[in-house]
C-alpha cells in the first residue's frame, strides 16, 4: 500500500466518522466523545463474523451498519434522551458521552476476552491487512472504502433533498423549535441522527483494521482526528465534515510521512500532533471552520481586487 493509497483510505474513514459526529452534534448539540468507540464496535462486529462464521469483513458491512445504528439509537434512548428531558446542559451531556466511552471500553475489553477464549487466540489487538487483495495494483480496501463513502453521500443527498423525512430532518437541524411547531417530530429526527451516526461509524470501524492495528486505546486515539475533521468543517456542517475528513486524513498521513523521511521513523508517533495543530490553527484563524469562511471574499482578495 503506497502512502497515497493509505492516506485515501484513512481519509474516507475519517470523513465517515466526522460525518456521524457532525450529524449528532447538529441535532442534539452534544459532541459525542464516544464516536471512536462506535467505530471500534464495528471492528469487533467484523472480527466476530470473520473468525466465527468466516464471513469476509467486506460482506459484514451491512450487518455492521445495522448493529452500529442500533447501538447509536440505544445510546440516544437510554443515555441522552433522559438527560435532555431533565434539562441537562451541554457539559452534562458531554460528561455522559465520556462515561459512555468508558463503559464501551470496558464492555469491549470483556467481549474481546470472551471472544479470544472462544476462538483460541487473543483478540485485544488485531488487523485485517492480510485480507487485502490487490486489483491491478490497487488495494481493494481503497475501492471498498471509496464506494462506501460515495454510497453514503448519494444516499444522504437523496434522503435530505428528495424525501419528506429529509425535509423534516433539515428543518429540525435549522431550527428545532420552529419545526416542532410546524408538526415535525424532532424526537424522531434526533433518534435517526444517532442511528445514522452509529451506523456510519461502525462501517468505518469495519474497514479501519485494514489500515491500522486495533488496540484497546484505538478509540481514545482516533477521537482526536475525528474532532479535528469535524472542527475544520465547522462542527455543524455535514459537507464541511466530509471535506474536513479528507483534509485531516491527508495531512496527517503526508506530514507524518514527510517528517519521518527527514527525521526518521520516530516521527510516526507525532501523527496526532498534526491533527491537533489543525484544530488549533482552525480555532485561531476561523473558529467556525471552513463553513464560516466567506469564500467569495477570500477569492476576491487573492485575485487582487
Amino acid at each position: 500500500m503506497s502512502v497515497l493509497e493509505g492516506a485515501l483510505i484513512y481519509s474516507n474513514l475519517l470523513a465517515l466518522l466526522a460525518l456521524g459526529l457532525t450529524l449528532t452534534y447538529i441535532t442534539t448539540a452534544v459532541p459525542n466523545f464516544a464516536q471512536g468507540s462506535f467505530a471500534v464496535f464495528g471492528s469487533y462486529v467484523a472480527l466476530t463474523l470473520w473468525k466465527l462464521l468466516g464471513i469476509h469483513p467486506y460482506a459484514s458491512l451491512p450487518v455492521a451498519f445495522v448493529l452500529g445504528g442500533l447501538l447509536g439509537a440505544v445510546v440516544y434512548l437510554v443515555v441522552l434522551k433522559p438527560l435532555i428531558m431533565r434539562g441537562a446542559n451541554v457539559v452534562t451531556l458531554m460528561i455522559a458521552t465520556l462515561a459512555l466511552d468508558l463503559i464501551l471500553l470496558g464492555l469491549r475489553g470483556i467481549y474481546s476476552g470472551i471472544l479470544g477464549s472462544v476462538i483460541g487466540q487473543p483478540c485485544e489487538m488485531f488487523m485485517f491487512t492480510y485480507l487485502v487483495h490487490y486489483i491491478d495494483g490497487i488495494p481493494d480496501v481503497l475501492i471498498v472504502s471509496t464506494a462506501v463513502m460515495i454510497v453514503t453521500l448519494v444516499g444522504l443527498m437523496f434522503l435530505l433533498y428528495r424525501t419528506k423525512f429529509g425535509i423534516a430532518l433539515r428543518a429540525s437541524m435549522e431550527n428545532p423549535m420552529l419545526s416542532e411547531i410546524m408538526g415535525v417530530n424532532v424526537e424522531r429526527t434526533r433518534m435517526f441522527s444517532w442511528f445514522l451516526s452509529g451506523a456510519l461509524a461502525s462501517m468505518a470501524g469495519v474497514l479501519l483494521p485494514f489500515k491500522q492495528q486495533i488496540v484497546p486505546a484505538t478509540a481514545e486515539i482516533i477521537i482526536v482526528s475525528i474532532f479535528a475533521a469535524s472542527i475544520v468543517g465547522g462542527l455543524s456542517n455535514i459537507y464541511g465534515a466530509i471535506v474536513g475528513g479528507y483534509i485531516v486524513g491527508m495531512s496527517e498521513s503526508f506530514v507524518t510521512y514527510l517528517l519521518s523521511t527527514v527525521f526518521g521513523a520516530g516521527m510516526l508517533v507525532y501523527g496526532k500532533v498534526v491533527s491537533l495543530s489543525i484544530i488549533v490553527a482552525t480555532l485561531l484563524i476561523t473558529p467556525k471552520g471552513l463553513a464560516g469562511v466567506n469564500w467569495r471574499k477570500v477569492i476576491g482578495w487573492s485575485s487582487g481586487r
Partner: protein
Amino acid sequence: MILNILFWFGLYVIVSLSLNLEYGYGGIPNFGKALSVLVGAVAVGGILIRLLMAIYGVHQGLVIGSSTVSGEITSAVAKNPLLGVEVFLASLIIAVVIGTIVGAVFILPSARLREDYLAITLLAIAETFTMVCYYDPTIIGSYYGVSVPNVFAFVPSSEFYQFYVALTLFMAFLVYVFVERITNTPYGRLLRAMRENEDVVKAYGRDIMSVRMKTMAVGSGIAAIVGVLYAYYTLEIQPGSFMNYGRTLWTFFPFLIILLGGAGNNRGVVLGSFIFATLWELVDFYKNSIVSALHLPIEAVWLEYILFGVLMLLILFYKPEGLIPERPIETEPMKRLKS
C-alpha cells in the same frame, strides 16, 4: 488497605479540587485534566532527572542514566536527609511552575470559545500529549520508564508508606486551604459569575479570556503536584502503561468525584474523594474474586471501568447537584444582614 484509601484520597483531593476550581467554580469543562498530572511527571522524569544527571556527570541516556543517578541519590539521601528534601522541593517547584505555564498556554486556542469547543480542544491536547509520551522514549522513557530516586530514603523502609501517606495528606490539606481561600475572594465570586453568565461578566468589563487563562494556570499548577507525589510513590515514571497518566484515571475520575460530592463546593469534593477512594479500593480488593467467581476469561479492570461509567451516569440522572449542593456565598454584608 486503609493506607491505600488514604493515599488515593489525598491524591484525588488535590486533583479534584483543582478541577473544581476550573469546572465547579469557573465552568471550564477541562476534559484535559490528565495533562497537568502528566506535566508533573514530566517535571520530575523529564527535567529534574536530566538536571541531576548533568550535575552528577552521568552520560548514559535517560532510561539507564536515570537509574544510575537515582541509585546514587537514594544512597546519598540515606546519609543526608536534607538533600532528599531539597530534591523533593525542587521537583514541586519545577512542576508547579511548568504546570502553571502549560495551563495558561493549553487553553489559549479555545479560551474565547463556547464550552463544547473548550472541552474538545482541551481533551484533544491532553490526549495527544499523553500519546506522545506513551510512544516516544526520549521524553519520559515511554515503555522503558524513568527511575526516580527515593528522596525519603532516610525514613526506615518499614515506615515509608505511613510517612508518605501522611505527606500526601498534608499536601492535600495545604491545597484545600489554598483553594478554599482563593474561592472565597472576589476572584472566586467572579468565577461563579462567569460560570453562570459570561455576558454579564463581560458587561462588567472583565475579560473572560484572561480569567479563564488564570484559572487554568492555577488549576494546572495544583494538579501538577499530583504528578510529583505519584512519581515519588511509585519510584518510577511509567507512561508506557496507558492507565498511568491516561484520561480515565486523571480526567474521568476527578469529574466523577466532583459530581458525586457536589460541584462548586470544596467540602463536597473532599467527601466525594473519600467515597471514591474507598469504593475504588473495595472494588480493587474484590474484583479479582468477582472475576474468578464468574468463570470468565476477562481482566478485572474492565469491570471497574463499566462500574464507574455506570455510576457516573446514575449520578447525572438522579443527583446532578451532588451529595453536598453548592451554597449561596456568605459575604460579610450578608452575614451582617442575617445577624
